[in-house]
């Protein structure tokens, strides 16, 4: 952006600092706005020969220690924002002008838009089709591997299409052009992926470009075609972040939506049979959406079928010693926009333990072995007390339904208790219900917010502690007849 200067600089870092000074000299005719978020700095101003020198000084500051799951440094450290840019609208207009020539339609682009959306009846279906086409068909490349790619200017959409590769702004620009080709109002949007950037002072420190689509009510919805492995059009790393839609008229900065937990869901269904010899078998179906789906794709999509099977067999064998995988079927991984589904059967010997008169089992679902992804997403909620808030990647929901068939000639002596606990943005329902010949086990965990501090964090811990004890209980069987 010519004739403008802006800066967002954390004033505290991972090392202790004795003294920090930031000095900016601008022409006296250039108004400069500044603000220190989450802290203070001594500011001085000196004008000589038509130039103004601003100086911000901070004395001794301790280091910020890293804490698992803490927000990025830019969200918790004192931050100096300095800008000569009058408003966010100016940045919006500037980028819209910069990208204007890149979004010129071409016959090939219009033809592509038509062919991709052919036969699709609804606006949403057409938008999704174009989004996932760009996400999947245009390879994302590292800047260093794509030639002269520094700066903000996107490549012309027709060029990105011919190359079949691009960086984020190239992919965004191509999608903008394709959406416009089917008559929709679409614009590029600048965003800081992974960080909630402060909004009071307009600074040009975005690290990512996405797409904004004008909806019927005049508001915008957002799409990120860079995320090739996401079944959501707006994946977790650009949810709940500040985005600047770039239009000729100019827009103010706004917040992208946070997907509800129901869109970041893992659904697990298991039919488990316990045997009198202590072995068990289970038929399992896992259906993943949102962040669960994204993580599954990221871990499995690049693997060959045999490597995928090895990966899942390895995870199972680590969770359930001796578990053997069979009949693995993975669908959805290679279908843009679909949810990943994994179905398999497992057999495991020596899971039942003869303890006095009892046969003691932990079933795969009840033992918490079938949902390692939710556990991973929530793993940072481990400390009793935190210095910084806990920032989860996304909201999370996990649903489990397991039917457990008991061995012939055995009845349940005891089983884990049912419970329901709801605290703030976290809730857990667990039910252990004896049914004919066995047990129906269901569990639903919902974490409906992303950032937790103070009491909200303690509430989350309470719920997760309860869930963690899921596998502590056992199915205690004893020989006998059902009465």
């Amino acid at each position, binding site marked *: 952006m010519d004739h403008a200067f802006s800066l967002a600089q954390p004033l505290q870092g991972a090392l202790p600092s004795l003294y920090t000074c930031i000095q900016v000299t601008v022409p006296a005719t250039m108004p400069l706005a500044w603000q220190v978020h989450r802290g203070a700095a001594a500011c001085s101003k000196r004008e000589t020969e038509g130039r103004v020198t601003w100086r911000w000084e901070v004395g001794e500051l301790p280091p910020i220690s890293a804490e698992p799951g803490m927000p990025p440094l830019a969200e918790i450290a004192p931050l100096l924002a300095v800008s000569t840019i009058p408003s966010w609208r100016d940045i919006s207009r500037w980028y819209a002008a910069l990208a204007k020539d890149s979004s010129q339609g071409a016959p090939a682009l219009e033809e592509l838009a038509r062919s991709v959306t052919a036969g699709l009846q609804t606006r949403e279906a057409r938008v999704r089709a174009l989004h996932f086409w760009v996400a999947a068909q245009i390879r994302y490349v590292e800047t260093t591997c794509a030639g002269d790619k520094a700066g903000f200017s996107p490549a012309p959409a027709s060029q990105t299409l*011919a*190359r079949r590769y691009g960086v984020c702004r190239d992919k965004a620009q191509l999608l903008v052009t394709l959406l416009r080709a089917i008559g929709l109002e679409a614009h590029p949007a600048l965003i800081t992926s992974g960080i909630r950037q402060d909004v009071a002072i307009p600074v040009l420190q975005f690290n990512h470009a996405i797409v904004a689509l004008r909806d019927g009510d005049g508001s915008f919805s957002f799409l990120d075609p860079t995320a090739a492995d996401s079944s959501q059009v707006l994946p977790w790393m650009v949810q709940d972040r500040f985005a600047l839609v770039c239009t000729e008229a100019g827009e103010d900065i706004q917040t992208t939506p946070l997907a509800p937990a129901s869109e970041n869901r893992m659904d697990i269904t298991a039919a488990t049979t316990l045997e009198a010899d202590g072995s068990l078998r289970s038929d399992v179906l896992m259906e993943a959406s949102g962040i669960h789906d994204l993580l599954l794709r990221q871990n499995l999509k690049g693997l060959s079928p045999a490597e995928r099977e090895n990966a899942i067999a390895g995870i199972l*064998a680590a969770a359930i*010693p001796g578990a053997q995988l069979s009949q693995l079927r993975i669908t959805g991984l290679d279908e843009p926009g679909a949810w990943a589904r994994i179905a398999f059967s497992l057999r495991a010997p020596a899971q039942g333990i003869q303890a006095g008169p*009892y046969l003691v089992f*932990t079933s795969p679902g009840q033992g918490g072995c079938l949902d390692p992804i939710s556990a991973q997403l929530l793993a940072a909620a481990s400390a009793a007390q935190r210095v910084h808030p806990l920032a989860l990647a996304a909201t999370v929901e996990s649903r489990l339904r397991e039917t457990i068939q008991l061995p012939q000639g055995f009845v349940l002596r*005891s089983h884990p208790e049912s419970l329901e606990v709801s605290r703030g943005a976290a809730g857990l329902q667990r039910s252990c219900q004896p049914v004919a010949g066995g047990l129906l086990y269901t569990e639903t965990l919902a974490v409906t917010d992303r950032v937790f501090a103070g009491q909200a964090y303690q509430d989350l811990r309470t719920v997760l*502690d309860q869930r963690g004890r899921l596998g502590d209980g056992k199915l205690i069987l004893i020989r006998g007849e059902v009465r």
Partner: protein
Amino acid sequence: MNRTCCLLTLALIIAWALPAADPARIAAALASPVTSAQHPQAGAVVLLEETVLTLDGNGRCTVEGHLLVRILQERALGGLCDQRIPFRGDRQSCTILAARTHLPSGQSLEPEAGAIMDVAAPEAAAASPYSSARLKVVAFPGVVPGAAIELKFRINPLPGAADDGQPFMGEGLLAGTEPSRETTLTLRVPAGTGLRYELFNGCPAPVIRRAGATVGYTWTTRDQEQIVVEPGMVALEELVPRVVWSTAKDTGELGRWLARGFRKAAAPGPEVRSQALALTRGLASPEEQVDRIARFVTQEIRIIPLGLGQVGYLPGQASRILANRYADPQDKVALFMALLAALKLEAEPVFVRVTRARPAQLASLKEYQDLLARVQLPSGERFYHLGQDLARLGRLLPSHAGRPAMLVSRKGGRALRTPAVDRLQQCLRASWELELDAQGSLAGRLKLNLDGLFDKALRTWLAGRNAEERQGLFQGVLDGLRKGMQLENIQVSDGLDLERPVQVTLAFRCPRFACRQGDLLIVNLPDPFALGMAPILPLPQVRQPFQVTADCRLEAALVLRLPKGFRVLYRPPSSADRQGPFATGQTCATTADTLTLERRISWREEVVQPEAYPGLFQVFTRSQGPGNSLLLLEAATAASRQSAP
């Protein structure tokens, strides 16, 4: 996997050479039907890979490569569409002769000029003396499944680049992790050159042709199946056809060339002399002096993790390395030699073979992947791994212990084997003291004594973390062990002290650790090796030979004080089991108020063949089974009810 990189890396030492796959061959290769149905595990198929290395009479080498790959699956795009060709910017130029995407429609696209570029190798980007480690990057346009990419390049020696006398040596793999229709390696050398080669894993004999004053050796493989990568499998070099070659007459000659280079680099200048004196002031014995200098070079000279040979094998000047305070492995050894020379002590470079693949008998530096230093002292010889700043000083890790190596002395090179380490030096000992109350709450203490690779793993994990951050890390581990387990206190020995093994003591508590179900108190005992990185056999069965990489031993002792008013209904059984390189065992005993569990597991370095692997997996699985971690207590009142008539 980027095959170009693979083959080129190995040959970087070399000065390189090409093939002239004619247009008709390319057209025929492109026309040959290749489908996912034929290769269900493949992301791509190598239709043609030709590499030609031409050595001229001045010892300079030209490399030419021609690669043609059909993309079958989208997942192959990321690894193949940005080709990276390593070369040495100070000695070589790399020219792209042809780069094009052959579209399924039959059309072809060429990269724009801006999509072909030279970049510094990432590992050297922040260290200017190593910026000659370059990558030529080509980003292919328009690639979709069904398309093929074609890359033809030449690496030439730069005019005027000094010949450092390095022998012509290298290694070629004639298959890889994707199926390959045809792979060819040709070496062209002046007639009369003493080229020696060795073949491995069914590599065919070369076709030898003489053309004028040049002799060409060509190895060709056709229709090679892919190697599906499995966790823990042996190195690819152990599985696919492989050629190793060298013009060095023998190890002695190769060593003399290296010795000249190292001695020249390690001549101590005034700065080096004064540094050596400052470091050893007050230290009387040579052992103390050598250890002090080794610690300095290991810990205070930052390592630049360049692969051995990536910028040649000869080190830079010791004085420059000292001033920079960063170094690649050979530079570290040169500085070490220089500092010792200033004290009239002598160190010698030792090139060590880290990979487990069978070594060649001929003299080639390509057979070695890292560098150690050896010092002969009155108390015996010592080996120092100067590039490893998170392992105990003077103790070799399993990757470097008992390995084939080449010692470079004044007299030349000599083959040797690095000292083996005792399994007891690669060990973890965990002591748990736990107390459980009648409500199921647990309080306890865990003391970990680590050595060898476990010691190194913990140092690596904790490196650069302050006390608060360490607390957070250990809290995370405890929480993973059992949700709700809270760290109360932590003591960690000084991770920068490389003289002594690292020790950790954790104090913790966990409300409702045990689960009450009616009259029963269910106790899931913690995995006694939970913080000890216990070995995991990753798969129930394998297709490739499995490499157990080290001799190690884990031992745990767990003492649990039981709550009053309960009797033990079940406790883990005592057992002992052994299969191949694995042995496990445990003993468990209870008294009225205490449970004592001792568990051990050990393994030794060995290649396990696929047919023997399931037996090994069973032994490992049995040791991890749920019956080994369950303690079932029954309230005494219930017990007396049951036993009453």
